[in-house]
């Protein structure tokens, strides 16, 4: 189990997001930030630069 993000660093992320959290919400989301980090690691891998996203722009019908 990785250590949770520090309270100081998480406070910066919360402020950047424009959220106003209660102390309980702050601590709960801070502890859960490990899942965000896992997902971020999981989708970052070596890829060809030309590898496109699943959904690309298509012209809507009139």
């Amino acid at each position, binding site marked *: 189990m990785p250590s949770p993000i520090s309270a100081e660093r998480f406070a910066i992320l919360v402020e950047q997001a*424009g959220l106003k959290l209660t102390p309980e919400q702050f601590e709960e*989301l801070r502890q859960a930030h490990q*899942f*965000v980090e896992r997902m*971020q690691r999981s*989708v*970052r891998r070596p*890829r060809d630069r030309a590898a496109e996203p699943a959904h690309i722009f298509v012209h809507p019908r009139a």
Partner: protein
Amino acid sequence: MDPTQLTIAEASRAVADGSLSPVALAEGYLDRIAALDGELHSYVLVLRDEALAAARELAAGRSRGALHGIPIGLKDIYKTRGIRTTAGSRRYLDHVPEEDAETWTKLRDAGTVLLGKQETHEFAIGGPDFTLPFEPAHNPWNTAHYPAGSSSGSAVAVAAGLCAAAMGSDTGGSIRGPAAYCGIVGLKPTYGRVSRRGVFPLSYTLDHCGPLTRTVEDCAIMMQALAGYDPADPGSAEVPVPDYRAALSTRLDGVRIGVIRHFHERDAVADFGSSSAPTPTYIAAFDAACRTLESLGARISDLQLSPLIDYVDANRLIMISEAYALHEKDFRERPQDFGHHMFARIGLGAFLSAADYVEATRQRRELCVEFARAIDGLDLVVCANSTGPAPPIDALPTFGTVERASYTGPFNLTGSPALSVPIGFEDRLPLAFQIVGKPFDEAGVMRVGHAFEQATDFHRHRPAIADSLA
């Protein structure tokens, strides 16, 4: 015979030959709701007068087909004109839409009778949450247990005999999970097959609408009315709709089925930890189900894909990102309106970046290509669903939605049609697996599900509460 014990196929025949009136059928379900739903909490709004008026009109009119007079329910994220639609949220407690969901329009035109709106997790993600105005639905097999979500009310109502069929939505498994825990059939159709217009979104590129029913044949009847192109849904696909019921069969000779075992036998514990371990009873039930398919003539082979976590994390990252974008303004300006689980689960989206989202969608394409190639030499695949019985409803972790293995999310990512079918019981609670097909092959998926169902009797078992008034 209590008409609420009939499947849609049976009730439809009785209505057609005049031995059963749509009014008697609607009354039967409404009486059951009045008697039983105080314990189950599957409905948030019962439309007794409206349902009986609709049934009387249908009884006096010409037949509209197999769904003529069939009573159904809608998850309370389906918009209904002039009828409150809350999405399970305080934010929309008094919300009365001015339009109908396209799916409800189709079902109404096909002759169904709307009994009411059914309990949902808040915005189809935040539940079970006892801090919200509506009590979460309880599992009819054991009311101390969880029915899964987010289409919880819909699955509970079908399993308990409080409607003949219901509509759910599925972004990571919200049709198939409740179908599994409640011992019924649930279909997540192909992305684009069934319109999402007029249904509260959770995640635009992962949301699917689909039916929950007691049998696969009933699912086919519902899909016949639901499937089809909707030009007002940007994700809708213009693909011909086959005769689903005609495709059902009791034999599977020559059908090539790939079995994804490593998701539950290896990856779940390796990547998500011991809390995601399948139970021995589940593993045995899954293997027995595969042998049953083989006995029906199917050719079974194991299928190897990327690890489960690659699919699951991409699905979850996309879902949380899209849902957070949808609710960001309210998260900033009126956080007190959200229930605890919704705020916590989707609040994680505040800490994901645009680059994270794009990377997840690039991974999505890679995995979609992988799955398409893997299934190319096959007709369809089978995969685990929830790998054990329903847990107690008061013992669910807030972040179970990101913490634990999911066997359903991969097929939201690929957009594949996926059907949950009962395969057994553990501790008197149902178990299920998934049958997953190629894009737009709902007919093939239901064919296998129906054949399996006819060879087994799991779908005939009903919770005691379902028979308590019979």
